[in-house]
């Protein structure tokens, strides 16, 4: 392991999405963004829907859209548990844009029948996916 790297794992119920050596991780914590470097103190943090950014061993910045969950940091391993997680490079941008439009339309209707909290989450997820794919422009 290089001098300044540690392990990042992103785990969903269906798979281990990634496990690699990284230099730096930024996660969407519930009260803002939170950065982790090597030799961080043991920590458990609740995460929001958003984009996880990391700098890999080669210095390249990569993004993953996650739907909330939590991160545990211990012994130079950062483990992120999320119900869904998608690598930015693998996101279907068209589908995410459709989802964004759909969520916006639903929120604009403002009628009693829609589950407001759920629609809002769908909106956040769509934005996170577009941001992770570098396709969000607003």
């Amino acid at each position: 392991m290089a001098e300044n790297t540690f392990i990042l794992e992103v785990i969903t119920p269906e798979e281990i999405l990634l496990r690699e050596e990284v230099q730096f991780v930024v996660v969407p914590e519930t009260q803002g963004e939170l950065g982790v470097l090597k030799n961080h103190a043991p920590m458990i943090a609740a995460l929001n829907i958003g984009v996880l950014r990391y700098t890999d061993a080669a210095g390249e910045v990569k993004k993953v859209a996650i739907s909330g969950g939590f991160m545990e940091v211990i012994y130079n391993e950062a483990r992120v548990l999320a119900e869904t997680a998608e690598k930015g490079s693998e996101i279907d941008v068209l589908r995410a844009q459709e989802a964004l439009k759909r969520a916006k339309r639903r929120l604009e209707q403002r009628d009693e029948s829609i589950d407001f909290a759920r629609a809002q989450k769908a909106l956040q997820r769509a934005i996170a996916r577009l941001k992770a794919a570098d396709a969000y422009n607003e």
Partner: protein
Amino acid sequence: MAKAGVREYKRRIRSVKNTQQITKAMKMVAAAKLRRAQEKAEASRPYTETLRDTLARLVAVTADINHPLLTKREEVKKVGYVVVAADRGLCGAYNTNIIKAANAAMAEDERDVEAKIIAVGRKVRDFYRKRGGLIAEYVNLGDNINYADAREIAQYVMKAYEDGELDEVYVVYGHFVNALRQVPTVEKILPIEPPAAEGETEEAFVDYIYEPDAVSIIYNILPRYVGTQIYHAMLESKASEHGARMTAMSNATDNAAEIIENLTLEMNKARQAAITKEILDIVGGAEALKKGGK
């Protein structure tokens, strides 16, 4: 007459052979699907175990936890059963056994409670539609179990629980031991009984920083914990279904082989009898001619 008998045997053997080919194919398909289901169950383990361990550790270090999903109801009136079995039959007594286990759990409950069923799988739905008590159904989920489906079911039961429509919730599924053995299992999922920390691991003594604080993280994890329990039940039940079907189809294929063997024996006997009868006829005729010639 005897000739027609042989032809009849031939027809029946052909028919049994066709059935045997189908059961053989189904057995192989079930074996392949079983393997896939097991791989999925395996893949879900890191998430489920990390979630459980973290929750256990957090609960161990936190005193004041007061979450609606953890609180036991003093008066239990309505008990929910999430019964997870198959959409399709032809898997031996698999579906029946799970439904039986659910019914037994209801019968054993000596409190004055009403049982409500959340059916997962068409066979379960069909049964409780007739028997009554069905409050939700999730059918045709297919062989590929998604976490999203499990989460939807979890959200439904948690909402029903928080709204007071259910006071306790159990999940009933087929615990997969191996292809020959699936054990119907009943587990309580609500109110949540927090897992106990396993052993005195090193990590149990680590002094964590909590962002924002331990209680918030516990509340964040609890609903996900219910989701993983239902997901786990669905994955186990799927593996059990394919295991049961594989065994049932394997037995059916063996039975077909036995029937074919018996029918072939009968057919040969019939053909032998027909030939013997013909020979007797010829010999008899020849004898008669000989006598007539004298």
